[in-house]
């Protein structure tokens, strides 16, 4: 039993940190323009394809150590997903900045459908995959009776380390740079920030770029961990990451990470100990539960309805 608990904790942490990385894109965009970027999950899906393509291309050109290969992949994937995030905002959301909420929401869904099918048409509908790049892991615990052991794979180590590094960088950027201050002020009051000389359009673009970039990091890590993906993964991953953002309190970056870990852990425990078939149902159920009973999440601030 003990080994299973440890194993699920490790799995949950790895899964959760990926949810967290994607959730940041949702939460930052929501914080700044108050809309759910439905297409964010599809940016992540797109990242998975770019990951596989760049690994295939790089390894066909030259064989190199895995560490170098992965660093190069991240360096290719992140700018490309970030660029997609930027273009997405420019095409679909900027013209609707002052439109009704319903319009912006419908556009976002349209964009999500568009991206899915764009990839389906350009890359084919079937499952894709990459070879296992990192194998093996640490044994954390071995049960003396059944001699089953809890293993933390090296891939999971990479996931945790990369997530930690990205989070710390993001925290530094938001907290201590001029850009971060502009982001925070725009989130608080867009009009006032604009009057004080903050280029809010640029800030919004930057937020999309950061969100999409982190989703790119997430997609490299997921592809590394699971190896297989298709054009539809963005949908489920998107809802789950959004759930994570809601769990943590939408609008809060720390909350998104926390919510991601919470969701990852509870999901992996549920699928490990209860029923793996219904793990998605469980995640969506959790989403609905939180939406109904604690819509502000763990770290969100409550809104007072203005009459």
């Amino acid at each position, binding site marked *: 039993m003990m080994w299973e608990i440890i194993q699920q904790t490790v799995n949950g942490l790895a899964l959760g940190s990926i949810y967290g990385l994607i959730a940041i894109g949702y939460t930052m965009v929501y914080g700044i323009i108050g809309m759910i970027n439905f297409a964010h999950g599809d940016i992540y899906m797109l990242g998975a*394809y770019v990951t596989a393509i760049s690994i295939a291309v790089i390894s066909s050109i030259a064989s190199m150590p895995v560490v170098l290969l992965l660093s190069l992949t991240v360096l290719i994937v992140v700018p490309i997903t970030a*660029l997609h995030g930027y273009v997405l905002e420019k095409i679909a959301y900027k013209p609707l900045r002052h439109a009704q909420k319903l*319009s*912006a929401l419908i556009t976002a869904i*349209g964009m999500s459908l568009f991206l899915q099918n764009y990839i389906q048409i*350009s890359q084919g509908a079937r499952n894709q995959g990459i070879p296992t790049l990192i194998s093996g892991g640490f044994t954390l615990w071995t049960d003396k009776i059944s001699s089953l052991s809890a293993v933390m794979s090296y891939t999971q180590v990479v996931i945790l380390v990369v997530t930690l590094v990205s989070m710390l960088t993001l925290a530094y950027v938001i907290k201590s740079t001029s850009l971060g201050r502009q982001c925070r002020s725009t989130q608080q009051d867009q009009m006032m920030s604009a009057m004080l000389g903050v280029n809010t359009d640029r800030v919004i673009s930057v937020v999309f770029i950061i969100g999409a970039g982190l989703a790119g990091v997430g997609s490299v890590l997921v592809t590394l961990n699971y190896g297989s993906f298709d054009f539809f993964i963005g949908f489920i991953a998107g809802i789950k990451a959004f759930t994570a953002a809601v769990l943590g309190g939408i609008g809060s970056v720390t909350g998104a990470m926390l919510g991601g870990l919470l969701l990852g852990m509870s999901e992996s425990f549920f699928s490990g100990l209860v029923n793996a078939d219904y793990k*998605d149902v469980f995640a969506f159920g959790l989403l609905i539960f939180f*939406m109904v009973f604690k819509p502000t999440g763990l770290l969100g601030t409550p809104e007072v309805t203005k009459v």
Partner: protein
Amino acid sequence: MSKKESYKKLFKQTFLFFLVTVFIFVPLVGIKLLGWKYSLRIPNALFLIFGLTVIRFMIGVINLTPRLRGPFRKVFSQVSYLPHVAPTSISQRKKSLLFLVIALSFVLPFVIEQYWLSVMITALIYVMLSLGLNIVIGFAGLLDLGYVAFFAVGAYGVALLHHFFQIDFWLAMPIAAFLAMLVGGLLAFPVLRMHGDYLAIVTLGFGEIIRLLLNNWTEFTRGPNGVILPRPYISFFGIPFDKNSPNSFHNLLGIEYSLSHKSIFLYLCLLLIVIAVTYFCLRLKKMPLGRSWEALREDEIACRSMGINHVTIKLFAFGLGAFFGGIGGGFFAALTEFVSPSSFTFIESALVVSIVVLGGLGSIPGVIIAAVVMTLLPEVLRDIANVRVLMFGVVMVVMMIWRPRGLTRVLRPRFNKTSK
């Protein structure tokens, strides 16, 4: 700015645009994954890159040419059609046109082939779904992205009622529709207090939950294999359309057996129901319930201050929308005689949403036309069939940016002082 300078700026912008398209299309279109290898498709990418760059440049040129700029902006600028008030009386031309359309749709099944007949039935099913969703999105302004769940409940309701209890379609369909209504009410309860984005994502999650349940609860729903209904499943109110049975439809009428009898019957029944539902929806606009929905969409707080119970109103919107979705689902099961979870994915919900958007949120004629066009277009133009979903996405984005209120104006009813 002088002309030279502005052209210089345009070239710079076009070059930047070119770079962006290169980075977007080269990795994802120019390279295709093949297992763990890849193949190059550079011409495709180049086509897109240069095509879009040229378009971008042309737009820039048009914007710099005063003579072209005016008409260009006129066509492409955002126009949000405000509703307009109905004229005092309907013109004779419109009346005869409406009559012609209805008459034609009744004659249609007798003159077209079997294949097109089933396409037309599908179109009518989508009209049904769109009218139902129009109540939720168009009237009440609640973005429901899990509408397919009610469609699924209707279809599975009919299929499972036959599978377990051998209940005939004409009894099973209403039961399934009421079941869908119940499920709609069930969904409405948690989402009553939400609005906008939250509502959208919760309904989305709900739709997925239903699909996953259908997929995984194998003992009850038979899982991914789906439920197969007997062929022919539908009967002429008890008289089967069977070929070999002695007292089947064609023997009783003394006509030759044809596969299309069943489809014609199904089509006509569905057509009658659709016409009834359309009339009901048109009346709704003048009824307190429908008007309350629209008021709710416009301003919930003002609505509450008028003594309107926003909770029950929302419940009704979801329930009624789900009811129509359930009827559509029942007919879907009768048409395909087979249901499986793969027919009830998010894409279906998105399709119906895009129909409602295209028709103009709240405009009933617009929604009906959009539903028929969106189902027939991929059939007519076979080439676009595989970019169907891509098209829906583009339609949603373009419509929201270009014509956020749909292609037609919404008609508001006119109320005149009674002459006393």
